[in-house]
């Protein structure tokens, strides 16, 4: 734990306050990197990537949670895990290829636009699907949706069947079932899935690189660019900021939902 987890994190923070040299860095204490981050367009980019990630999280919730509910409630018990396996299949393909494959689908004369035009939903192709923040959000949803489905399914699977029988006996309707039973009982899973998507949304540089336009830069991309520019302390500072954001989120989540509960049914 300490070697693989705590030490790298500590080093990230320590290196982030080192002084930059031409090709590397030297020990020292300066907050220049943090200044460089907070007083430039980088902060704006970081905040907007948080905003876009939040949209991805919300979309993933509205798409993923119903899928998880459907699998838990309507698919036969023996088939449930096989259906879940289907959602792992895309991960057999390299992430770069998976995201790159979205380009011909989303582009101006891509598959999505031609389908929409064939069915007369639109007259002229929409060019905002790719090389825009929208493109990034779509990319994030496509890449990370399975994680929302997994984590919420795991939480729903832990709900014993008798709960649904009691509901049938008391006459719980769909809306009530969702609000009073499924949502609170799946909350830890929802939170875990949301944090995962959010953190990857601001951290993975690949998606904005391939699908994003000029305005869509996330923290991962800032760090990557900093490394390319040989500004290692800045890259470290960005990583440290991301790390603290994540720790804050997890702390809130732990206080609200007691995340350890989520892992109970597995053991």
């Amino acid at each position, binding site marked *: 734990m300490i070697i693989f987890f705590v030490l790298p994190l500590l080093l990230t923070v320590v290196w982030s306050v080192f002084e930059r040299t031409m090709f590397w860095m030297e020990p020292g204490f300066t907050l220049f990197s943090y200044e460089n981050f907070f007083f430039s367009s980088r902060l704006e980019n970081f905040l907007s990537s948080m905003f876009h990630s939040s949209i991805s999280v919300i979309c993933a919730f509205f798409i993923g949670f119903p899928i998880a509910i459907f699998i838990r409630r309507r698919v036969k018990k023996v088939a449930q895990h096989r259906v879940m396996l289907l959602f792992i299949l895309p991960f057999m393909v390299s992430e770069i290829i998976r995201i790159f494959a979205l380009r011909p689908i989303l582009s101006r004369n891509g598959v999505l636009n031609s389908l929409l035009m064939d069915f007369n939903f639109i007259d002229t192709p929409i060019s905002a699907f790719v090389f825009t923040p929208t493109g990034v959000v779509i990319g994030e949803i496509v890449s990370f949706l399975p994680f929302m489905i997994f984590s919420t399914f795991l939480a729903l699977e832990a709900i014993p069947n008798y*709960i649904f029988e*009691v509901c*049938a*006996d008391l*006459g719980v309707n769909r809306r009530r079932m969702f609000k009073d039973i499924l949502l609170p*009982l799946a909350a830890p899973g929802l939170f875990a899935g949301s944090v995962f998507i959010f953190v990857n949304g601001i951290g993975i540089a690949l998606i904005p690189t391939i699908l994003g336009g000029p305005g869509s830069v996330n923290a991962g991309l800032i760090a990557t660019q900093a490394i390319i520019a040989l500004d290692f302390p800045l890259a470290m500072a960005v990583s440290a900021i991301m790390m603290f954001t994540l720790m804050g989120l997890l702390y809130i989540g732990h206080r609200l939902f007691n995340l350890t509960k989520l892992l109970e049914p597995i053991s």
Partner: protein
Amino acid sequence: MAKTNAIEVKNLVKTYGNVYALKNVDLNIADGEYFVLLGPSGGGKTTLLRSIGGFIRPDSGSVNIKGQNVDDLPPDRRPTSMVFQGFALFPHMNVSQNIGYGLKLKSIDKNVIENKVNKMMDLVGLKGLSNRMPHELSGGQQQRVQLARALILENDVLLLDEPLSALDAQLRKDMCIELKRLQKTVGISFVHVTHNQEEAMSVADRIAIIADGEMVEQGTPKEIYSNPKNKFTAEFIGEKNIFEGRIKDFNKTKVVVDIDNDNIEIANNNYKVEKNQKVSLSIKSESIQIKKMSKTNSKVSNNQIVGKISEITFLGQFVRYLVVLNNNQEIQVRSYEEIVNLKVHDTVSLSWKLEDFLLHQN
């Protein structure tokens, strides 16, 4: 006793693949009756209960509750509430939220719900626990919450599916007394499924024995215990000394049964039998007199069997002798005082009163 029927089940059939879970079951349960469905696991009693509650749709037959046909109604629209096996509470709601949830669904005024929940908690003995979460309750308390959650809806029938199976033996005994008291207080019909005959005897007004999807026998606990009409019932309630044989002869007072060429005479308790019919006899282990055979009294009469003691066990209140007969059948004899001169391998004679033997249809 012109009681109306709370539940009328007619000709209920349910199959899973080509296995019958219920074969033409008929059942009437009176208003305000504590009715127990007793039988071995997999015998169909839970299927029957669930068909009454609406959780299972039978293949054919009908269920009437309070004179109303409920075949097409879902569980929540039937005048029944269910107490489930195990601890079926909403884990994220506290005790009073669990109990009041059914009323909340009916959008009843908050204060009314609170009042009713408090009354119900007093009734089932949960006073002062309203803010506890389910995982902070003992097994018995969790089942009380389930009872309260079901009873608060004031339905005509309470269905209990093995409600005490997850509790330990002592707690189960206490809960039996509680359940009986509760049923008398609220006055509605309880239908209780169990495989535990002691539990059934202690709560039931009437018991139905169900096995292999069929209604084997119905009666009061006393009838079932002291005079089971059916061999299966006798075995199920724990009779150990069962003999198979044929009717050799009978008149108004006596029946003679041929068991492996030994004749056993029993009192005729209005049995409906025919000559050569296959029947079983049983006798309670405490009704048999055991005596050492001496060479001088070796005459064997009709009401006597000879055997050898194979085991003597001291069991606190009584001593149990296992006696092996000439045909290798093993008989249990229970004696409340130890008979001093009996040892293992002794040859003994077993005798009984005519009326102690019971005759069962196979």
